[in-house]
């Protein structure tokens, strides 16, 4: 932190994606409009009024070297009063949400959670966390579920993010870390196959690593059903039918074997299971794969030529191949390609996952996943339970077992789950089959949501607790590289707002647990270090001071003298015998393929200027000007057949629901496929349509492919009212008027706190 007359600049990180770009926050007292510009509130209160805050470059941080995208540059907008919640809301007997005091709100929450547990059993109380929560919050939320509520049913929206890559990576390598190397290695490798990833739109500052690689002679292969801005820069773009990435990977493996490019020495010395992988590749010969994927055999050959001719090469996946009902198998097949070519466990080579949410990595390591305890320990492992129970000072037998996965938890609401505590997530927009999820949430006896803004999910709640944001509190995040970084408070917590750590502490006390829920982030982190010690994701040697001094520390880092581990697997994989495991999957169709009634594929994704369910970004005017609302991208040939022109409203309908948005014509998409971004609520909500078919291992829903039909609609229909009534006195967002139903816009709430 540096201070000059009147201004203070604090080193911290962006509230959005998994890149966790370094940025500075410059706070200035007494000039400009200030973040607390709503002067009608608490005129006499001290603290944050008349403080203006500005995002500034932080060129010293290695991941982004000062670069920020539009979302990062405008991140401070969400700190403003009027945009965010500044008082708890409690639903009255008349069904209307009204501002309340913190004690009243917390009493109501404690009573609601306790009542459901008493009446229906402890597992009837569910907890739903988020991939944007800091490590400290994720850790403490998991502990709150297991120690205070003693429920098995905790999961989080990260299940919708990288769970397939996590499961496949763990099976193959023995440990799951998004990237086994720092981003900087990408710039120095010889070839990258980027599967279902669009960093040009979703993490723009990362793009320079790919352009640097190409400038140095490396080749970029992009696999995507759309010719995205990333694909347009590639040396080779493979454009498969949605849901066929698994067949494509196996077809490439077939060609790699057929053309004699198996690294026999590597396979023999450092892997097991190649014979089974080879057999499954034989069942996916190139002409058959062409039939399944629509990718020409010659293009597959070209991809393999690029991949094997580079001395080092990588395969990186993102949500495209992962958000499928066969996501784990699909990622496994792409890992096979690296293993067979000997392009893993060596410098500048390997498989990696481009994680989505800000703390998608750390969020899954410390205990908010249904089947895991801190340190990436499995909750079914007796030794893991004993270790964590000792740190927590409880009996290991008192810890619950594994609970329901995210979607299964949400659709149990109102039935087995009677009360739900949501922290930092907006499943009404971000969950698949969202209309059904919304119905289930409305059927709960009691719903409490802790969030920064009044999200669509918060609008359904009985109690809403306003959370402090990323610029107002300390906490660590673990970025996609496995680098643990530190967000530092640049501003005081505003009046009427509390940190989530405060909330957990206060609720624990009300529910009879007086100790073990610290409110100081560093104190929580020190406990997390002990809980993770000896686990796969070992943070024991990481301290706030080291993070500040070393631009982050890579886990595993078992003791303070350990330098951290920027690069994994160079000597051995993290399996018991040190060898990587080949997968041997067989291609299968998507859970729902087009038919006469629903003849098209729908795939979903993100746009440059919005983030996830939009909870934050839809409240930022500059971002809304750039991306003002939902749309349906379709090929001009399809549009012509449908009689649809640019901008005409069209309805996308599946067996689950319907979404209406203006048509956007593009030759960059397959004519058998339409695309919708999923950032918006209301009638343009893409997730009203998506399919919740789950991967059998990761329980990842199939966001990326389902069958739909397209229809012209006369005009954009009026937004259907959503949510329950909300008093209008000052809690209704900033009135930017973007989308959304019932005057409440909301959003995803995955980041930024």
């Amino acid at each position, binding site marked *: 932190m540096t201070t000059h007359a009147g201004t203070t600049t604090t080193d911290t990180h962006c509230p959005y994606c998994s890149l966790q770009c370094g940025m500075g926050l410059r706070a200035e007292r007494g000039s400009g409009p200030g973040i607390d510009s709503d002067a009608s509130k608490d005129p006499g209160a001290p603290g944050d009024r008349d403080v203006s805050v500005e995002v500034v470059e932080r060129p010293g941080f290695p991941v982004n070297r000062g670069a920020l995208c539009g979302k990062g540059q405008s991140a401070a907008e969400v700190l403003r009063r009027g945009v965010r919640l500044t008082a708890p809301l409690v639903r009255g007997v008349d069904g209307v949400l009204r501002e309340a005091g913190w004690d009243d709100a917390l009493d109501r929450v404690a009573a609601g959670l306790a009542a459901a547990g008493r009446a229906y059993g402890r597992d009837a109380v569910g907890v739903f966390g988020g991939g944007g929560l800091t490590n400290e919050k994720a850790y403490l939320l998991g502990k709150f579920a297991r120690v205070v509520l003693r429920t098995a049913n905790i999961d989080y929206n990260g299940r919708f993010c990288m769970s397939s890559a996590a499961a496949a990576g763990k099976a193959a390598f023995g440990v799951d870390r998004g990237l086994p190397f720092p981003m900087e290695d990408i710039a120095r490798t010889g070839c990258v196959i980027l599967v279902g990833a669009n960093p040009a739109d979703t993490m723009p500052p990362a793009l320079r690593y790919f352009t640097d690689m190409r400038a140095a002679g490396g080749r970029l292969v992009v696999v995507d059903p759309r010719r995205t801005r990333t694909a347009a820069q590639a040396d080779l773009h493979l454009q498969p039918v949605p849901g066929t990435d698994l067949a494509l990977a196996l077809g490439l493996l077939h060609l790699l074997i057929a053309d*004699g490019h198996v690294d026999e020495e590597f396979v023999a010395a450092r892997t097991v299971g190649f014979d089974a992988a080879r*057999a499954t590749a034989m*069942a996916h010969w190139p002409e058959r794969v062409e*039939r399944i994927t629509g990718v*020409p055999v010659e293009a597959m050959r070209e991809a393999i030529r690029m991949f094997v001719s580079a001395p080092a090469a990588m395969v990186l996946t993102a949500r495209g191949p992962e958000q499928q009902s066969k996501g784990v198998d699909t990622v496994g097949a792409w890992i096979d390609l690296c293993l067979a070519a000997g392009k893993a466990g060596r410098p500048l080579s390997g498989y990696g996952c481009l994680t989505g949410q800000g703390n998608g990595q750390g969020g899954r390591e410390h205990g908010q996943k249904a089947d895991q305890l801190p340190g990436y320990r499995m909750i079914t492992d007796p030794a893991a339970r004993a270790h964590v129970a000792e740190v927590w000072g409880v009996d290991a037998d008192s810890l619950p077992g594994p609970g329901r996965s995210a979607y299964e938890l949400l659709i149990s609401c109102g039935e087995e789950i009677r009360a739900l505590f949501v922290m930092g997530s907006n499943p009404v927009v971000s969950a698949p089959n969202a209309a059904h999820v919304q119905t289930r949430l409305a059927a709960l006896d009691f719903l409490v949501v802790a969030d920064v803004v009044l999200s669509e999910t918060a609008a359904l709640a009985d109690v809403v607790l306003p959370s402090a944001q990323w610029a107002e509190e300390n906490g660590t995040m673990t970025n996609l590289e496995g680098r643990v970084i530190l967000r530092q408070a640049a501003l005081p917590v505003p009046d009427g707002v509390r940190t989530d750590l405060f909330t957990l502490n206060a609720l624990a006390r009300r529910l009879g647990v007086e100790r073990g829920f610290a409110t100081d982030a560093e104190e929580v982190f020190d406990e997390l270090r002990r809980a993770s010690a000896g686990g796969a994701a070992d943070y024991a040697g990481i301290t706030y001071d080291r993070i500040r001094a070393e631009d982050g520390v890579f886990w595993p880092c078992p003791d303070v003298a350990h330098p951290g581990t920027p690069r994994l697997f160079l000597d051995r994989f993290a399996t018991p015998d040190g060898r990587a495991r080949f997968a041997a999957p067989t291609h*299968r169709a998507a859970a729902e393929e087009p038919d006469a009634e629903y003849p098209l594929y729908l795939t979903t994704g993100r746009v440059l200027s919005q983030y996830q369910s939009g909870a934050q970004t839809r409240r930022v005017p500059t971002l809304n000007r750039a991306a003002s609302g939902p749309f349906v991208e379709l090929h001009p040939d399809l549009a*012509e057949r449908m009689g649809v022109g640019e901008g005409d409203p069209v309805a996308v309908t599946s067996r689950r629901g319907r979404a209406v948005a203006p048509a956007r014509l593009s030759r960059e998409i397959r004519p*058998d496929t339409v695309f919708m971004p999923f950032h918006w609520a209301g009638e343009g909500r893409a997730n009203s349509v998506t399919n919740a078919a789950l991967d059998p291992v990761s329980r990842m829903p199939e966001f990326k492919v389902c069958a739909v039909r397209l229809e012209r609609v006369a005009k954009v229909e009026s937004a259907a009212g959503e949510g329950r009534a909300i008093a209008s006195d000052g809690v209704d967002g900033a009135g930017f008027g973007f989308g959304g139903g019932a005057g409440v816009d909301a959003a995803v709430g995955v980041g930024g706190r």
Partner: protein
Amino acid sequence: MRVGVVGAGMAAARFAQQMAERAPGTSVTVFGDEVYPPYNRALLADVLSARFGAEAIGLPVGPAAVVRIGTRVGALDAEQCSLRLADGEVHSFDAIVLATGAGPVLPPMRNLRVASGPRSPFTSAGATGSTGSTGRTAVAGPVGPSEPTGATASPAPAAPAAPSGEPSLDLLAGVHAFRSLDDCAALAAAAPRAERAVVIGGGVLGVSAARALAALGVAVEIVHQGPHLMERHIDAQAAGALLGGLAELGVAVYLDNRARALTGTDHVAGVELANGHVLDADLVVLACGVRPRVALAREAGLRVDTGIVVDDRLATSAAGIYAIGDCAEFAGDVHGLAAAAWDQADVLAAHLTGGEQRYAGSRTMMRLTAGPLAVAAFGATGARAGDDVVRVADPTRNAYKKLVIRGDRLVAGILIGDLSTAGDLTRAFERDDPLPADPLHLLAVPGAYR
């Protein structure tokens, strides 16, 4: 549930694998008379040209299937739903799947057979489809080891690629079929010593064999009865482009020519054509088509036409007995392509595990790839009145593209040389997708959508 599968070819492998995926507890026993566990027959040309080792083309059958190799089934009792093996063992099942495949057709030629062996995989072109196939022979030949491979996840062939079933025993020395790994091994062993090879038959298999032999450095000629190559799949103009590609490989083609005899006594020395001309040859490959192996089904009293007749659940005329792959006939069609066999295997596995799927026929594409001989063809070769036919021919590059369009649907197509749009066209044909207004887009550039 216990399922017995007769035949261990591609259809059988896919069926077993799909059963394992859908109902891991099901017992599936596969009886194959070759000495290899199931392998990918579509890759035989690649084995011949040494792109793959024989052991590398094994197919997965799922973790629990028992594959009994070298085990010939002697009889099917449809009433008891049981199989009698050649050695007399009888096995009962809840369901039996006939995946007996097809055998190569033996052309009517003098001096082709030197002696009448006890068993031959060939069917005689001069006889009706019912004669001369394996199940009909009364005496069982030597049967290979019949120990089950057990619950193995690795189906790579257990035996080296040495001749074992000796399918060529009764053919004149130097004459080979091209249908099995044994055929492949025998051809691969003969090729280095061969100076001149003649392939009899200019269909897909014959062209593919000629290409592989040429790649091994053997001088190759094709003798073909029809007016142009691969007439079942492509038109005359396309075949012309194909001829150009073959010429670049040094392969000569004799069209409108029937091979009527072989010369040579202990070993083939030449192929005598119907016009009296004799082509010198010390290696002959028979590629005169295949015929469904239906004897077992016919003897068991099942309804057989060209193939074993099945309904849309792949059920034969006998309860509990099913047929898939090259031996099955659905709606009058017998497919000889792996893609159709796998479609059928998938539907049957779904049906036997409680699924609702029905088989509605396969829209399949013929593919032949490698170097200058890339060919893709689908649909009927002839166009109807009123069809739009779009053709692009590039004689310099031996490239040819043709699409037959009916209304806004693609009903047939041929691509020779440049196959960069094959992926899109395959999808449009198979899914019966509507085409863009200007179909030339589909022939133009890779990623024809843009």
